[in-house]
């Protein structure tokens, strides 16, 4: 099946799919319509549990079990990357040397790193109040750490980032999520049910029952997962060379 036949097949199937999709779009309810039955009920349930950010309430309270599934997808992907990008026997690891970087860039990296880390933790902490949550804040915090690689070099980042700690942190965070769910099972009614803690006063940091706890667990898990993921990719791209040394030399 050479390339020409494959392209013809794609063209024919593509146009047929396009026709069907456009026909489907014409029958969809108008954009901006007023009928959102699930949305209204989700908002009412979220307000009943004093959670200001309804999306966080849907994610961590009404559909907490699906978020557990997503957490395992994240965890499995990181484990997959760790296995795929490991250093094979015949590859050797070259020590990263210090790299010359312009002074303003390094000063910017050193100045913005704590600010970005603070913003990431702010986004996680206020996940159930203002826009944000565990996922977004975790990625921002992990990216903040890698400013060291961007502002200086990989050796500086390695010195600050003990990888074993982050892999353990990843596992601890996922199990913290599970333990909170089991506590719901033991303490009150159902797995991951939000009946364990009092809902607190509306629009404060302690409102929403277990939503802030699950938010923090997901935030820590995503931050550790992204650090481990980027560590594997950086190792492959900067440190690990092939047996024939082809990999080394100027990139």
């Amino acid at each position: 099946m050479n390339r020409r036949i494959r392209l013809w097949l794609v063209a024919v199937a593509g146009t047929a799919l396009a026709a069907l999709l456009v026909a489907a779009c014409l029958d969809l309810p108008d954009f901006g319509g007023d009928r959102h039955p699930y949305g209204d009920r989700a908002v009412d349930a979220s307000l009943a549990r004093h959670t200001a950010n309804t999306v966080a309430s849907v994610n961590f309270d009404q559909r907490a079990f699906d978020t557990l599934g997503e957490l395992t997808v994240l965890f499995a992907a990181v484990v997959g990357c760790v296995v795929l990008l490991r250093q094979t026997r015949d590859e050797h690891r070259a020590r990263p040397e210090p790299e010359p970087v312009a002074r303003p860039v390094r000063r910017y990296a050193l100045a913005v790193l704590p600010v970005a880390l603070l913003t990431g933790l702010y986004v996680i902490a206020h996940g159930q109040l203002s826009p944000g949550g565990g996922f977004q804040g975790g990625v921002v915090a992990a990216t903040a750490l890698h400013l060291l690689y961007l502002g200086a070099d990989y050796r500086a980042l390695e010195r600050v980032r003990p990888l074993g700690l982050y892999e353990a942190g990843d596992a601890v965070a996922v199990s913290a999520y599970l333990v909170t769910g089991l506590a719901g099972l033991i303490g009150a009614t159902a797995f991951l049910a939000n009946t364990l803690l009092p809902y607190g006063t509306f629009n404060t940091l302690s409102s929403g029952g277990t939503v802030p706890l699950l938010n923090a667990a997901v935030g820590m898990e995503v931050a550790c997962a992204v650090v481990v993921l980027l560590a594997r990719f950086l190792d492959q791209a900067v440190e690990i060379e092939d047996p024939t040394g082809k990999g080394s030399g100027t990139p």
Partner: protein
Amino acid sequence: MNGWILAATVALGAGAGATLWGVATGPLRRRVVAQNLSTALACLVLLLLAQGYDRPSYVDLALVLALLGPVGTLVFARLLADDLAEDPPRAWGPTYLVVGAGAAVVTALCVATGPSRASAKLLVVGALLIGGNVVASRALSGGFSGLRRG
């Protein structure tokens, strides 16, 4: 239809359209500069939309973009250092244009919100945006010249 959303629409259509055209065509050095300017312009659009929709909590998006936009450009500047080495980008004109626009937008928003913690937050976002943009442009035009191993 208030003026803020109109301003955001114009900035989005003109500014983002130009940067998209800049990043789609031309030599690599111009594409990298266009990417840097696109994050700055998008941050301004987000600030205008936050004011236009009367939702102060949307400023968090502009804050994260003001932080991560320049970091994304640093990623490109660092990992494409060898590709950019032969003809480094020299686009200080558009950068200062966008920085000026940013300063104007942030001051207009601060005047609109009046002296309060919210305008302090806007000033922080403006400072991060302008500082990040200038440093990213500096990094693009030769911040990582002596790089060997990346």
